């Protein structure tokens, strides 16, 4: 619907959305949520099969985006673990994978993926939702935040691995569900009684992945973050954007996560 514009860059392939629905085999005891939960079952196998994925976590769920041309590989890879349904006119139709299962390359000896630097800004984030019928009540604030509050990014000095703060605001409206990720400062501008969040009101710290724009072809980026987190059972939100990927981890766990990721960085280099 957007007019083509010289100011707009568009990644050249079409991306399909995968969404993991829990089948009721409840992972009781496992408190970690989000990307962590699917890291081993979805993200890692896809990385092994050289499928480039983007992630989008919201308040309600996690979406995995894969390129349309990779779909047969994806289906083949995941069929062992999941029942795959395709949505046709709102009805879920099971996808058979037999016809695409043959002749697929075994995972090549994984070329050690580029390890991207991670940065952790100081601001604390919250992840909230808003009841759809109260959305109009926050519309003005929302517009203000989205379009009129641009402060120039205060980058830390070059070479510094820690960003001071980052301007990050993610608003998504998917299938009627609203999800907002913003820092605590921004949150104060919203009427607090309309924002819904978890009862513990936990706060999150961000890990930004990539020193320069990551592009869309490289695979294994999500995996290299998600897998170590899954190993130590730390929940994470993961949001891929045009340039960078962002992981959100609980405030208390940030130092452990940074340590973990740095170690990984050092060990690979």
């Amino acid at each position: 619907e957007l007019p083509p514009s010289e100011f707009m860059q568009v990644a050249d392939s079409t991306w399909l959305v995968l969404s993991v629905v829990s089948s009721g085999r409840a992972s009781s005891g496992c408190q970690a949520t989000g990307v962590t939960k699917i890291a081993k079952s979805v993200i890692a196998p896809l990385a092994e099969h050289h499928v480039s994925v983007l992630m989008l976590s919201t308040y309600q769920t996690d979406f995995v985006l894969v390129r349309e041309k990779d779909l047969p590989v994806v289906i083949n890879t995941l069929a062992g673990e999941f029942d795959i349904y395709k949505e046709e006119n709102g009805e879920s139709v099971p996808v058979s994978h037999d016809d695409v299962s043959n002749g697929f390359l075994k995972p090549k000896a994984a070329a050690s993926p580029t390890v991207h630097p991670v940065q952790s800004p100081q601001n604390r984030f919250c992840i909230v939702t808003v009841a759809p019928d109260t959305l109009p009540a926050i519309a003005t604030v929302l517009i203000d935040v989205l379009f009129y509050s641009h402060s120039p990014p205060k980058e830390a000095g070059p070479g510094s691995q820690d960003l001071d703060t980052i301007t990050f605001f993610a608003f998504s409206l998917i299938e009627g569900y609203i999800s907002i990720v913003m820092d605590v400062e921004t949150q104060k501008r919203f009427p607090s009684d309309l924002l819904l969040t978890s009862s513990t009101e936990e706060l999150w710290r961000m890990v930004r992945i990539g020193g320069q724009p990551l592009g869309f072809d490289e695979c294994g980026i999500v995996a290299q973050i998600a897998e170590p987190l899954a190993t130590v059972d730390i929940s994470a939100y993961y949001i891929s954007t045009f340039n960078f990927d962002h992981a959100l981890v609980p405030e208390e766990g940030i130092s452990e996560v940074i340590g973990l990721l740095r170690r990984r960085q050092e060990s690979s280099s």
Partner: protein
Amino acid sequence: MSGSKPDILWAPHHVDRFVVCDSELSLYHIESAASPEPKAGSLRLSEETAATLLSINSDTPYMKCVAWYPKYDPECLLAVGQANGRVVLTSLGQDHNSKSKDLIGKEFVPKHARQCNTLAWNPLDSNWLAAGLDKHRADFSVLIWDISSKYAPEAAVTTEKVRLSAADPEGGLVVTKPLYELGQNDACLSLCWLPRDQKLLLAGMHRNLAIFDLRNTSQKIFVNTKAVQGVTVDPYFHDRVASFYEGQVAIWDLRKFEKPVLTLTEQPKPLTKVAWCPTRTGLLATLTRDSNIIRLYDMQHTPTPIGDETEPTIIERSVQPCENYIASFAWHPTSQNRMVVVTPNRTMSDFTVFERISLAWSPVTSLMWACGRHLYECTEEGKASSLEKDIATKMRLRALSRYGLDTEQVWRNHLLAGNEDPQLKSLWYTLHYILCLAQYTEDMDQKLTGNKGPLVYAGIKSIVKSSLGTTENLRQSRSGSDRQADIIQYLSEERSLALQLCGWIKKGTDLDVEPFLNSLEQEGDWERAAAVALFNLDIRRAIQILNKGASSGKGDLNLNVVAMALSGYTDEKNSLWREMCSSLRLQLNNPYLCAMFAFLTSESGSYDGVLYENNVAVRDRVAFACKFLSDAQLNRFIEKLTNEMKEAGNLEGILLTGLTKDGVDLMESYVDRTGDVQTASYCMLQGSPSDVLKDERVQYWIENYRNLLDAWRFWHKRAEFDIHRSKLDPSSKPLAQVFVSCNFCGKSISYSCSAIPHQGRGFSQYGVSGSPTKSKVTSCPGCRKPLPRCALCLINMGTPVSSCPGRTRSFEVIHL
């Protein structure tokens, strides 16, 4: 809700109360308001009822859903689901007893805030409250809370982590640990407990319907569908569930959960509420957005749905309880078919959905109708009622009196029919004469060759047509008068046949009407006898009959006067007698007397006064016409009369049409007029040749009459009718159903012989046709072994011994 549209709930036990909830909860008391003036402060809901506002509760903002505690006590305990996912127990006014005091204000808080979509109390364990929430990536969407649980101690350990903003002052009232958590990373849009088991919960999740079994929470049965809104279980049929999506309602059978057993016609607007009627089986009410109509789907006649093939029938109705759009409705829990609707501006209306009336006639003229739970029977009142009995009653009585089955004296059937309908009398006499003549001509045919046989059945119309040109004139005076009169009579063989059919003369060529006159005298039918005598130009005999009639016990003395008038007959054209008679005759009540004077005063050749005297029996008018009308006149008259009869469906006309296609036409209009398929069946069965029987209308009457007999459970009567029918219409004979089979090879004797035509022997050769003159076979045609033995004399069948008394009987068996 949330301030937009009010919802309405009846109290489950205190049936005079209901709650309307939008941004607040308002409790109303409903009572009957007989007086036209409503009490102060009460709202009129219908002509009979008014509601009074008892209390308002606005403690719970952001209400999303409300559920009323299902047990009798505490009375007004409500669970409210809020936009942030919290479930709060609250109450409305009323005395707070100890039990509810502990509960009111209790909050159940999910880990992650999101909208609470639905609430459902467990109907068996009323401490269990299921809440359906929107989706959260890491949380469960179906939480089952135990309202009696205390503040969870393990939650207290993690208090430092809990930064509950509304650090609740009444800490003991917040519960954060649900009894069960189900549906992780999913959304729950609707819930209902299954009455089959306390631990079965049906949930409308995001894109699927799931049945959770709390005995084993890791398992669930689910089916992918869009119809996940408003799941509700049929209170009368616990395996039947309704759910909806936009404008479409799906009905599910939990035993065959793969797909809906049926879907109701899609509504153009999205549905907002679907509810089974708690007081009638299989009645589902649905409401769409922006509509003032509630649609009702009646599945009463739906048997337990089985298989994919049987699409059950549903009756769709709609009711419009008020002019405005309806926001919500609620069935009354006990009052039959009653509901209250509420509009967006909170006006309410109480009404009862009118029950469909179903109605059924019994085969014996009583009427049943059902309305709601009431069953009414109406029967015909008093036999002595002045109203004519219904034809069904008549037919039934006639069937009981063996009407139509007297084949010896066919005319007697009108007596069996009750001897009250002149048309039936005429019909059966006509059939009687036809059959007598047919028999007679058949007898004659054995000696002479003639072709009058079919003519007899073809009716007077055909007979008269065939007589064209064969007629002789005969001038004769009215005997007894002095003057010679020029009355022309016509004679021919066909005309005399017609007269025989009319019953005036006996069979044969004898033209004497005397036997007929005698029989009329015996019946006391003096006027008719006199008229017939006069039409046979015997004035003296006519006068004699009238005198006899006047002197007989119950006779009419006026007959003497008539006789006197007759005796004054003069041929003089301008006489006073003639003048007076022709004008005064019209005042005579009896049509025959009237016709007599019409005849005497008319010009020769123009007898309209007689011919069109409609009260004179058709047979007498036709006989008269056959005597006195020329061929052309006669044809015209008969043609005209036939058409009149056919149009009126007058059975007297069978005399004219005979049992021909014309006769069937006439019978058709008779049946149309009366519905008397019984007479029609019996009458047409007499037809020969059986052309008329092949007419599909006739077959239709016969089949209907047989069905009618079956409906009356007159099995024997029906069997009698079938026997009667097979005698008259051999083609209706049922095929043989009993065969004699050979003891040795097991083949049917008759079958095997007809199956081996190359032996060149016919069926009768085996003796099974029963004709003793033909050669018989004593062995089975299949295996050449002896035929079965007679049970009585033990002689093999087919043995040419005539002394065996049992033999004929065993042949009868074969005849079957």
